């Protein structure tokens, strides 16, 4: 993987607006996040170590593989050892290398290869790997009970939740995002393999097509309803907002500078949606479908004006429209950084696509941020007639991994 010429995604370069004579030119030159205009380039490498974990404010990559794991070992030392091994492999893979040196080929031929090999010829593809710890990890098994942050609550049941226990919760999560789906899947596959015997996969989710942008240079993508999603998301450039709403400053030492992640699998009844008139679709969202302008305004990035009313004094952005209920104005100024992905897990056996949006929302405290927002949406949002929350999980995401440290080291001090 370190030497091969990228064989895939070459066409994607043009889409990213970067003129490249040859793929080789890309290697190394795009190693940092300081070049947002090349963030979708296949060869881009995102540093694994830093103040905060990569994969939160990193420009949202196009693909995701998310896994939730249950810890099976009851030994604290084995868990620590696993986190160390994971850290090594994760750092290598985000640099575009195999999970272990000479992992795919070149090792002992009598042994199964230590890297599964499917990413052998693929570049780093801006792979990021982000770890989080769920409420269930903080029980008696590993002596972590007093390390559980108060903010890491068991999420309440929201009205209309249809949660599948087989798609919910978990002791540990790992989010892999990359511009090539095979790179993301390779990373999760190899980390899971390293963990066999100590952790077991509880559930996992593939996502294609980011549904939010996390930097200003990214075009707002569309979700499976066909609408632009994440126009008003917090962006990497909004350092004040990140400070106020995303990075935790309270709780036990190990989580400070980290954040909390709520993951929700939101099934969309897209066949029903597709039979809904354009006017009604736009009223449900509160934006126009083409431009993405808030109703009553002209351009996508015009601020929504919740106080504009039409004929008969009826609000243009309706009382039950999605953007009104999810807006900071309606939620006491609260905002969340989102990194959602579209998904389609085949069909449901009744001839309907099992499709939707895998919501990933980061905030400094889910109790003040996610919970009130979802409470408002699940009780009032007209969109609830077209969606069903089928999976849910909550994780504390520790701050970045410094040189010489391993993933979540602070938790075991």
């Amino acid at each position, binding site marked *: 993987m370190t030497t091969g010429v990228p064989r895939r995604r070459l066409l994607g370069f043009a889409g990213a607006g970067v003129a490249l004579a040859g793929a080789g030119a890309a290697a190394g030159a795009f190693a940092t996040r300081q070049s947002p205009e090349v963030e979708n380039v296949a060869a881009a490498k995102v540093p694994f170590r830093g103040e905060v974990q990569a994969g939160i404010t990193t420009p949202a990559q196009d693909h995701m593989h998310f896994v939730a794991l249950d810890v099976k070992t009851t030994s604290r030392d084995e868990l620590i050892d696993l986190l160390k091994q994971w850290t090594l492999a994760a750092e290598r893979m985000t640099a575009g290398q195999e999970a272990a040196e000479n992992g795919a080929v070149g090792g002992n031929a009598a042994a199964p290869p230590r890297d599964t090999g499917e990413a052998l010829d693929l570049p780093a593809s801006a792979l990021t790997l982000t770890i989080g710890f769920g409420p269930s990890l903080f029980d008696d098994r590993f002596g972590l009970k007093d390390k559980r942050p108060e903010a890491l609550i068991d999420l309440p049941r929201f009205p209309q939740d249809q949660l599948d226990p087989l798609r919910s919760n978990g002791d540990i999560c790992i989010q892999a995002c990359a511009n090539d789906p095979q790179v993301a899947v390779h990373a999760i596959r190899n980390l899971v393999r390293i963990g066999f015997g100590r952790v077991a996969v509880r559930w996992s989710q593939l996502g294609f097509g980011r549904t939010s942008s996390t930097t200003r240079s990214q075009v707002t993508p569309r979700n499976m309803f066909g609408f632009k999603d994440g126009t008003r998301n917090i962006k990497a450039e909004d350092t004040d907002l990140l400070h106020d709403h995303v990075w935790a400053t309270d709780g036990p030492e190990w989580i400070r500078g980290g954040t909390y992640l709520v993951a929700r699998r939101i099934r969309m009844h897209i066949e029903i949606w597709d039979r809904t008139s354009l006017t009604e679709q736009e009223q449900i969202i509160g934006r126009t479908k083409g431009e993405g302008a808030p109703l009553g305004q002209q351009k996508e990035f015009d601020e929504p004006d919740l106080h504009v009313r039409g004929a008969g004094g009826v609000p243009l952005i309706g009382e039950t429209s999605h953007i009104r209920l999810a807006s900071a104005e309606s939620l006491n100024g609260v905002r969340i950084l989102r990194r959602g992905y579209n998904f389609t897990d085949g069909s449901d056996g009744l001839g309907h696509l099992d499709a939707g949006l895998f919501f990933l929302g980061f905030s400094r405290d889910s109790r003040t941020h996610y919970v009130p927002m979802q409470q408002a949406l699940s009780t009032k949002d007209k969109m609830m*007639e077209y969606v069903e929350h089928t999976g849910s999980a909550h994780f504390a995401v520790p701050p970045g991994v410094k040189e010489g440290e391993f993933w979540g080291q602070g938790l075991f001090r």
Partner: protein
Amino acid sequence: MRKAVVILGSLAVLAACSGKPASNASGSIAVEATDDACKVSKTEASTGPVTFEVTNKGAKVTEFYLYAEGDRILGEVENIGPGLSRKLIVEVTEPGKLQTACKPGMKGDGIRGDFTVTGDSKKSSDGNALLGDATKSYQRYVSSQADQLGAKTEEFVNAVKAKKVDDAKALFPVARTYWERIEPVAESFGDLDPKIDGREDKIENGQPFTGFHRLEKDLWESGLQADSDKIADQLLADVKEIVAKSKTVELTPVELANGAKELLDEVATGKITGEEDRYSHTDLWDFRANVDGSQAAIAALRPAVEQKDKALASTLDAKFKALDEALEKHRKGDGFKSYKELSQDEVKALAEAVDALGEPVSKVAEVVSAK
């Protein structure tokens, strides 16, 4: 538990989808609002979109309105703080003498000014006699179903209160049939729908679980409870309120068409999955009733559809027939098999028939709203 019938008639205020941000030079009208004045830079416009840029130069929070005759609001923007500018785009469809108003302090009649709109009418004409007949005919249907809903709910409630569990179980799907046939109309009365038809997993936190499904749970699962009588009385009172209100509903042809579509959405998301009647498994009764209601609405519109799009009319006939056939296979006595008795293949066949019908039904609104 589904949506209220939504009015999708002509929007008087539109969001322009394209074009440069309006500036004073390119046709938008500047409004300078102060605590005692409302200066509108131009007091004439042509029919079509009219854009106002309202700036509050006063000390009080203000609002800006555009009124048609009789103080009918065409558009307004509220809550404009001192120093702020806000934009209001109004689609004016008719020429005439209008009024602008600033309301410093957001109260009173405001500071009025005349505003003249000239040009051709942009309003769509829908003086179609066939459509007028359609809405009247459907209203008669709603009214007759509502009467039956009231009567059958009363029988059901009486059986519950007399502790005649078997009778109550037999009456449950019958009373619900009339509810499900006119559900989109009933649902347009906001708070009553969750009280009458809320499912345990769908109601809001803190809201009591009441209505048909609570009694369903009592009858089939937990046995009649101490408060079952009270729940039954409340159900009857709520249903009577719906019955009275549904007679006053006035529907447009587009609402009728959307109601027909929503009934099929109900089937596709609630009944086909067996979620609706999870204790009694009488989902197929509700399924039948939703399809009946959808068919009644489409039947009322059929003469108009026939006139405007003959092919769509015959497609609708064929797909309703196909769904009927798929459903009637599962009849048992006066009613239907339990949802539990359906095989996965049978459920899938029903889902496919609903999808096949849902597509053409979703096209009816467009056809009846076409000029």
